[in-house]
């Protein structure tokens, strides 16, 4: 809210955003008072702030929204992705105190204050974005208590890096619970909750899947004991290296039951097959990333939220006869999208692994299919929330995988 529009006697408290590289942005508090440390990232979705703010994958992060005016339609009962927000702090240009929408229950600022989330407005979020684009994601803090730039920067530099924090344990829910299918249940699935988004569960339910969510550290034997038709590995915050238990679980399950992973779940399955993980400079956070399904040649506009991703070439050598005759891994995966080829590597642990999806912006891998282990995974978010729904077919694909359809992924937007 602009200071001139706020009542003269009720001006918001000042706040400070400090970055690891020494940059500071003064602003005004628009959430809870206090301070929070985390990794600064930017999200380019123009709307959908409620879904972003409540997305458990943002645990440990200071999230800046690139669209400057936030909060226009308030917060509603329907669109939250988790009961409570997990992000460390929110950074916006201008926060709306007077939302307007028939479904709105509460203003975003009131919600943040109630949930104890520190937030700052009045920041040149574009300058911040360019800084993160140039120098990569970095540690940051938002404070309404320490307004001394030098001091706050020092404390940011002393804060724990995101890779060293137990974020999954923080957002995964302790008790198993079951989410019924919408209509008759066609399949029963166990979902490993590493910070699951409600939107994914809704999409699985809509595809006729009954889901039993289990805590992130549930062992494979315990999962198999439930005799599921398939197992789902959810999205979640942080570095997959921080959760070796989950990777071990996935390694045991690969080949035993159909598997599907999204985002962190994709990294878990890839790691289980021995892939190395790279950290992207500033990650993908937004709702407009172009991804080609190499099996259909169709491009999907996708929602994404990750800083880490698997390295495709690390999964094994190419199988030339299944990769258009190519034997050497190209430097840029967009070679495959240009040629409409879905290459296959031979993985020593799980057999043939196919690259099914490629990000057209930067050539990062976006989808893997384990041809000999009845599993597939996507780095992006087919449920969107927020974002375009082009990739919703992935949930039907999971059902078709469980049904035994070998061409389960070869479809696009209806």
């Amino acid at each position, binding site marked *: 809210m602009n200071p*001139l529009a706020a009542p003269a006697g009720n001006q918001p408290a000042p706040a400070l955003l400090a970055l690891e590289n020494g940059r500071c942005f003064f602003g005004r508090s628009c959430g809870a008072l206090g301070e929070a440390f985390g990794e600064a990232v930017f999200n380019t979705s123009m709307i959908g702030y409620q879904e972003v703010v409540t997305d458990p994958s943002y645990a440990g992060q200071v999230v800046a929204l690139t*669209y400057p005016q936030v909060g226009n339609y308030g917060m*509603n009962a329907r669109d939250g992705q988790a009961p409570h927000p997990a992000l460390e702090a929110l950074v916006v240009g201008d926060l709306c105190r007077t939302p*307007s929408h028939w479904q709105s229950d509460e203003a975003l600022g009131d919600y943040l204050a109630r949930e104890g989330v520190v937030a700052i407005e009045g920041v040149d979020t*574009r*300058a911040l974005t360019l800084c993160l684009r140039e120098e990569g994601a970095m540690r940051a803090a938002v404070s309404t208590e320490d307004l001394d730039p030098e001091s706050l920067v020092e404390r940011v530099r002393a804060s724990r890096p995101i890779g060293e924090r137990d974020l999954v344990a923080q957002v995964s829910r302790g008790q198993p619970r079951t989410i019924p299918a919408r209509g008759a249940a066609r399949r029963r699935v166990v979902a490993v909750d590493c910070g699951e988004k409600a939107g994914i569960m809704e999409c699985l339910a809509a595809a006729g899947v009954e889901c039993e969510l289990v805590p992130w550290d549930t062992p494979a034997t315990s999962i198999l004991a439930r005799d599921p038709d398939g197992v789902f590995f959810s999205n979640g915050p942080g570095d997959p290296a921080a959760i070796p238990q989950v990777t071990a679980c996935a390694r045991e399950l690969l080949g035993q039951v159909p598997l599907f992973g999204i985002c962190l779940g994709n990294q878990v399955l890839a790691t289980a097959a021995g892939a190395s993980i790279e950290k992207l400079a500033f990650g993908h956070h937004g709702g*407009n990333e172009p991804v080609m399904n190499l099996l259909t040649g169709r491009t999907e506009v996708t929602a994404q939220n990750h800083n880490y991703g698997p390295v495709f070439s690390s999964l094994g050598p190419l199988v030339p006869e299944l990769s258009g005759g190519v034997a050497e891994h190209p430097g840029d995966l967009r070679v495959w999208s240009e040629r409409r080829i879905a290459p296959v590597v031979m993985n020593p642990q799980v057999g043939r692994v196919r690259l099914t999806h490629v990000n*057209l912006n930067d050539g990062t891998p976006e989808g893997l299919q384990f041809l000999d282990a009845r599993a597939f995974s996507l780095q992006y978010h087919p449920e*969107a929330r927020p*974002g375009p729904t082009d990739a919703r077919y992935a949930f039907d694909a999971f059902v078709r995988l469980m049904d035994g359809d070998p061409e389960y992924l070869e479809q696009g937007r209806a």
Partner: protein
Amino acid sequence: MPRRNDLKKILVLGSGPIVIGQACEFDYSGTQAVKALRREGYEVVLVNSNPATIMTDPDVADRTYVEPITARSVAGIIERERPDALLPNMGGQTALNCAVALAQEGVLERYGVEVIGCDIDSIETGEDRALFAQAMGQIGLATAESGIGTTVEECEAVAARLGYPVVLRPAFTLGGAGGGVAHNAEELRAIAAEGLSLSPEGQVLVEQSLLGWKEIEMEVMRDSAGNGIVVCSIENLDPMGVHTGDSIAVAPCQTLNDYELQRLRDASLAVLDRVGVACGGSNVQFAVNPEDGRVVVIEMNPRVSRSSALASKATGFPIAKFAALLAVGYTLDEVLNDVTGATPACFEPSIDYCVVKAPRFAFEKFKGASDVLTTRMKAVGEVMAIGTTFEEALQKALRSLEQGHQGLDALGAGLSDDELADRVAQPTPERVFYLEEALERGWGVARVAELSSVDPWFLSRMEDIARAKQRIAELGLGGLDRGLLLAAKQLGFSDEQIARLTGQRADTVRALRQVLGVTPVVKHVDTCAGEFEARTNYSYLTYRAGGESERRPAERPRVMILAAGPNRIGQGIEFDYCCCHAARTLHELGFETVMVNCNPETVSTDYDTSDRLYFSPLTFEDVMDVADAERPQGVVVTLGGQTPINLARRLSEAGLTVLGTSVDAIDLTEDRERFAGLLDELGVEYPASAVASTVDEALAAARTVGYPLLVRPSYVLGGRGMAIVYGPDELAAYLDEATAVSRGHAVYLDAFLEDSVELDVDAVCDGEDVYVGAVLEHIEECGIHSGDSACCYPPFSLSGALLERVRDITRTLALAAGVVGPMNLQLAVKDERVLVIEMNPRASRTVPFSSKASGVPLASVAARVIAGEKLRDMGLPDERREPGHYAVKESVMPWSRFPGATVVLGPEMRSTGEVMGLGATFPQAFAKTREEISYATPTSGVVPISVCDRDKRAIGPVALLLRAMGYELAATPGTAKALRAAGIEVTELRRVRDGSPNCVDLLRSGEAAFLINTPHGGAARGDGEKIRSEAVARGVDLVSTMSGATALVQALATRGASEPVALQDLA
């Protein structure tokens, strides 16, 4: 799929003259398309009858036909050029309609021409309301409940079933022409009758009214592989019921949540799939119920549009260019995003700023017409503004309109609450200002929302502005510290507004800002919210804390070009043409060009046109801010019409170098007394004139100067408030009204040179030499605004000796006034005397026409001169050469948009656009212009004639020729008497007030071929007005001057004799 190699030659159709609902956005899209196709190696043939466009410059397409966009005419061009494919989705509804007609008449099949970019069936599904409703039903999307009527009675029956109010939309018309909201049966009958007559299919859709719902537009692209993206969502501030072209619009959508917006996205892509848009850009319009989120599809257009131009400018994503590439086989993933140069076009732009579009109206020109906004578009232009917040963008947009508002000013302080409530409830051009007044009065968002149905979110932002005004006023300028001054600028307040609120001068505010360091920063429009590096230089200024500017250092000296701002009557695309030429020429000369403009429809605001583009209001403050950021060597003010000319003095005083013609020289020609002094000194003749401040003074002066008189307020824009008076009574009546027009200003009285020939001269002067590029002879006599008159190059009735005198006078004046750059002279020739009416030391409206007709690019020549080059080094062709062809420019009038307005040409300009006809003779060229304006001129039928006494002698020969061509004649009593006296057979009609049979009956019967009706003064007004209005409503060609009638008859005599001419084949 890669580029199609089976196609070699592609025919592109433009959209013809600028009319309301179809303006220069199609020049922008068409130019992009042509450039993209040629870059891909295709040979491009272009047809567009509008000479003011950049796309019809001879070096844009390979073959350029400034010819009618009708099936007949285009068939002739197809026969000649034998293109492989036709791209019809760049030229608006005109081009689509032409493509449908070409297909129906079998022309495309006969010559093996493939339609690319869309297909004929999908055009029909998109446009035919019943087919569309059915198709939407099949994919589970709701459309407004509706029924089709082909007669007024059928429409009434449907309305009775749906219940009032209902919306009426005729099928296949431009910008919703002929549509409207009917609240009762009486209104319905009037709108339905008009709609039926305007719809080429004779169909009107009667729809459930969605008044008060939100209106959202989605700009969508799709490729042949089925990939679809939404480029931009646009939300109208005005709820349903106001045409989207007349509404303030905001991008991105502000008040829908992600769930709702994604639902619209899914629906948009499904609509394209279902309608069968093979590839290209389309727009889909939705209504969303603000109380429960229900969605109804309103319409879709399977082509680029005004909205797609806006979306392109709003996001930096060039829809038309990509649509052209998709049409020749590429898919979205194969097309590179220009802005990043590294990522594909197959993504959805994310923007990190707010865009507001505001329409510009011209109701003051159409006395008698209602200014209530409806589903029928009436705006003549628009502006776009970019800000970090909606508040900043809105205030910038409103001051960009150049209509005296410095931002969101309140209007209606003197109104009672009841009166204000009416203004708040009724959508009019000024409503946004009344909303602000209501909020300033403390009515509260809820009450204002209830009255206006404007979403409370927008109103809350406007209330914030109202609250800030109050605080600024309380604090005073001294009370604004750095933080609060920045806060004010972040809400979009101009220095002028702050000055007014604090009782200071704007200069003081500016000075204070500079002292406190409250200056705007440069930000880029990059399609991706900063995620990738932008390679283009498309920028805007905004106020953000921290002051981080993205301005890039320049490698070469910079020149700033001020463009023309929003299109309005009298200042439009012609000036954009000039600015685009200047940008290219100055770039070639080694400068970095910095374009400043706020009109999203234009080519000048394409980031490809100049080295740097600033989307910015053209006010002193905003222009100075750009100058402060860019530090140009100089600024060009003589190519963007009157807008930059009006800024020249202040910019110069603020230390900017005005290039070319000096500020003093501009002043000399604009100051009547100084200019008269110059003319006296040079011995150049001009009409007698006088200035008067009171009625008595005026009457006395009139006796000295002599009647008839051309009278106007001393402070006028585009001939506004001008009139011709024939005697003291008319003068007194005029003065009564004129005082309202210009309170506190004097009135000019000029001798009106009746029956003289008017000339327009376009020339360039470099301070030493003068090049007279074109002398244009007007068809209509003096007294008709030069912008509304038809004209011809070269002059068809003047002697060589007289033309030499015209050139001499031009040379003398240009050198004496000190012009360095373009200039325009308006002259009257009466009895071999040449009199100077007006001189403008800037490029004129006729420069594009003069350039195309003469083959000399005058705007480029002017730009070279401004940059210091000399005319004698340019190798220009001889001024006295005989071109070997005639080119006629004819004006296009918007009468049918303004029912109730006076339908007659006069000294006040009211045309929106122009066409050009080329032929071996003057009549041939004139004949083409009739077809281009799509006046059907039947070869037989009855011609009703009614002329004023002055014209009764001259009508004889015209009537005789018409009889000889087989027309039957009918005339009002006076005219009939004159014709019978000349021995010409004629049916006598009664005066309208005397009952039937009269001229109105004849027009209604459909037997009238065209109408000749010349008005005179006040007395005959009543009848004449009814007759002319009827002709407009029936689409009957109307000639309201004697000279126009003569030209038309000559043109009719040449029917069928003229061939299409490619500009590349001239000279």
